[in-house]
């Protein structure tokens, strides 16, 4: 390419309070290429992109578009410079139609009537040109996520974006849908558009990008030509050291079933069936992993088992007892521990002090109370013990939980749930946003629990994690368990099953 680069970032710096999300970032994106950016959760990818899109303001640094320094005061300025962005969390108005969403901000005049006609025509054109089909009069809330994403892309195209940023577009897609998306992206590139693709899935990077940059803890650590790098190198760059591919563990010694799920059906808040007639067992002394693309019912399954979400039909048996009422407190008393997927919204109350979180859910136990009162002394002592055992830093039970880093927060949750000698442990995304050291520690604790004869159900969207921890793997697709495999099943096989293609 002899052209000026489409985007150049020089010394971009951004802090959110105490969190240094972007540290002195430099990046060059060539015109007409697909440029991948990878990094672990919380590495600062979204922040950086939002700065380019004018959604956030950098504290310092310069942005150049086509070689010219630009000030991107707001998203409008970004749009005017030809930048479009598909956000990780969709920015759509749910009770608007597709057409209204696309027109929002580009209405073409004070009155809607005229704009509507031209928007329809333009939509038609984009549809035929790129294969982005969607009913313009459908309500967003009635569309599946895949189509919602398509609307987001259309929004950017409608505004004439020359540079398109996609922030983790495939997290919500099946591999087949992802492939379809990639085909569209290639068409766009071939027409001269520039695409920045954010992901932390190395496979995708290798499959579609021309260039790839790696972020770690707010820093831009490397940029490579995709053809000149390997998955291993990128992984190492991402986490900052050599990655252990396998967790050390012995043979499982499964006993009787602790958890039995029979014909379970669960709907989400909108009434869409997310878990459809699912049955399986988890036995004492084994880890059952559930693999699947995010959004295929794993979260709802976990929530139903944990008593947070009421199933529409089916049966859950814990230790032989039927659980007929969704009541997390009672389940805990029966020996079910739950490490939730989302520690910020479920597992922890960030505004509470650490010791309060260390008994959350267990606060009614006699050991922590004196009549109606809490026994603060006992609670703090207990919290301190866990802090020492799990090396939670800083070792201060009176510190506000929000002030612990992600990994330490996760350790608080893990300690709380594991250390109360449960019979059954259900775990969602145990290591999301957690650094390598903590990941190893948490993985080891999970194996120890298994070896101590606990039954463990593990959900993770990281296939590697599932494969390295599980004794059996169930694959979920579109609410169904589409098959069971052993951990030595190939990545290929599992991937196809996750896409609902093979069983």
């Amino acid at each position: 390419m002899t052209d000026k680069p489409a985007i150049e970032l020089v010394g971009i710096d951004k802090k959110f309070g105490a969190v240094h999300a972007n540290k002195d970032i430099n990046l060059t994106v060539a015109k007409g290429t697909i440029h991948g950016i990878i990094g672990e959760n919380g590495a600062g990818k979204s922040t950086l992109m939002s700065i380019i899109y004018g959604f956030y303001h950098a504290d310092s640094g310069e942005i150049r578009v086509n070689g010219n320094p630009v000030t991107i005061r707001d998203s409008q300025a970004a749009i005017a410079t030809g930048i479009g962005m598909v956000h990780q969390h969709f920015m759509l108005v749910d009770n608007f139609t597709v057409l209204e969403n696309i027109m929002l901000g580009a209405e073409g005049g004070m009155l809607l009537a005229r704009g509507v006609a031209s928007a329809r025509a333009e939509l038609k054109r984009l549809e035929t040109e790129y294969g982005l089909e969607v009913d313009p009069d459908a309500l967003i809330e009635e569309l599946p996520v895949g189509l919602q994403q398509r609307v987001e892309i259309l929004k950017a195209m409608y505004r004439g974006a020359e540079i398109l940023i996609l922030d983790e577009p495939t997290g919500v897609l099946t591999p087949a849908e992802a492939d379809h998306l990639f085909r569209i992206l290639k068409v766009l590139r071939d027409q001269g558009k520039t695409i920045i693709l954010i992901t932390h899935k190395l496979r995708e990077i290798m499959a579609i990008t021309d260039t790839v940059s790696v972020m770690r803890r707010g820093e831009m650590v490397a940029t490579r030509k995709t053809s000149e790098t390997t998955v291993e190198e990128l992984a190492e760059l991402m986490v900052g050291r050599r990655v252990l591919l396998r967790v050390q563990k012995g043979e499982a010694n499964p006993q009787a079933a602790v958890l039995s799920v029979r014909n379970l059906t669960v709907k989400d808040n909108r009434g869409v069936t997310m878990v459809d007639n699912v049955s399986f067992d988890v036995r004492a002394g084994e880890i059952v992993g559930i693999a699947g693309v995010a959004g295929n019912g794993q979260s709802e399954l976990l929530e139903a088992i944990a008593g947070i979400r009421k199933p529409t039909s089916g049966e859950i048996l814990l230790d032989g007892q039927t659980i007929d009422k969704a009541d997390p407190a009672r389940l805990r008393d029966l020996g079910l521990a739950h490490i939730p997927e989302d520690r910020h919204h479920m597992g922890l109350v960030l505004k509470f002090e650490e010791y309060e979180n260390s008994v959350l859910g267990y606060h009614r136990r006699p050991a922590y109370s004196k009549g109606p009162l809490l026994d603060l002394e006992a609670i703090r002592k207990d919290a301190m013990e866990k802090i020492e055992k799990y090396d939670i830093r800083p070792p201060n039970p009176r510190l506000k939980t929000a002030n612990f880093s992600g990994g330490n927060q996760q350790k608080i949750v893990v300690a709380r749930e594991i250390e109360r000698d449960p019979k059954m442990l259900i775990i969602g995304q145990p290591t999301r946003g957690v650094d390598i050291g903590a990941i190893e520690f948490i993985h080891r604790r999970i194996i120890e629990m298994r070896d101590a004869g606990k039954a463990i159900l593990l959900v993770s969207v990281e296939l590697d994690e599932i494969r390295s921890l599980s004794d059996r793997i169930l694959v979920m697709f579109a609410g169904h368990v589409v098959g069971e495999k052993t951990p030595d099943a190939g990545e290929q096989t599992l991937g196809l099953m996750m896409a609902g293609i093979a069983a």
Partner: protein
Amino acid sequence: MDYYDIFISVLASTIRLSIPLIFTALAGLFSERAGIFDIGLEGKMLGSAFAAACVAYLTDSAWLGLGAGILCSVALSLVHGFASITNRGNQIVSGVAINFFIAGITIVLGQAWFGQGGRTPQLAPDSRFAPIILPGADAARDIPIIGPLYANVISGNNILTYLAFLAVPFSWWVLYRTRFGLRLRAVGENPGAVDTAGISVAWLRYRAVMCAGILCGFAGTYLAIAQSAAFIKDMSAGKGYIALAALVFAKWKPVPVMFACLLFGFLDALANFMQGKQVPLIGEVPVQVFQALPYVLTCVLLAGFIGVATPPKAGGVPYTKER
């Protein structure tokens, strides 16, 4: 008096009593559809009533009174906006504050300036909005059925009454047929979508609360210098909250807002009419029943027994990009 005359009389009274509700509920509509809760409607109405009465008295001009009423109400809206948009304060708290402030300041100033126990001086006929007799009203009076309806209900109202009924379709048109309306509805549902579309959330919301201010200004002006001929302390007497109830009752939609306000106005008119009259089998119905009915109905609605009222999704939540 036969039943039809009673009907006409109550209908006319319903309309007179509904007007401030319609303006105020539409005001709430603009604000809340943009995601800004507004329980300061009461205060804005009262404040603008005071301003309108003072200025109309001083200038002998109803129109200048209206201008003052609107100005005052818009100023209060901007305070609410400054607190809840710029400073991301609690919108309910801000509304409560405005209500208190106005309940006090109108009396303090009114008493200091006029010494009539918080009232403003009685206005001369030409500094008020006088009833407009439509052509042929008197002649039509004797035509059966339509005559009284035309002469007593349709004719004989002041200009603000007609404006209120125009404001309803106009609000609908603005909300559903203009760019501003599209954006306003969007910002109340998902401000992030508006922001990423390159539209300033804050400025959009400011414009929405200013619309609310303007409409509330009409309501207050109507109270003070059209329906009455002076400002009287506390003259809004909870109408702002009734309007809020009507807004919920109408599920935040303009045309239903009008009907909800007419319903609540009707209850008020009925309460006046039924006073001291015996209802067969029941006896005299205490006026308090009519007074409480709008609130009871709204609660029943909110309980989901007559459909569901889902407020705008982003309502009440200050918009922040940073977590």
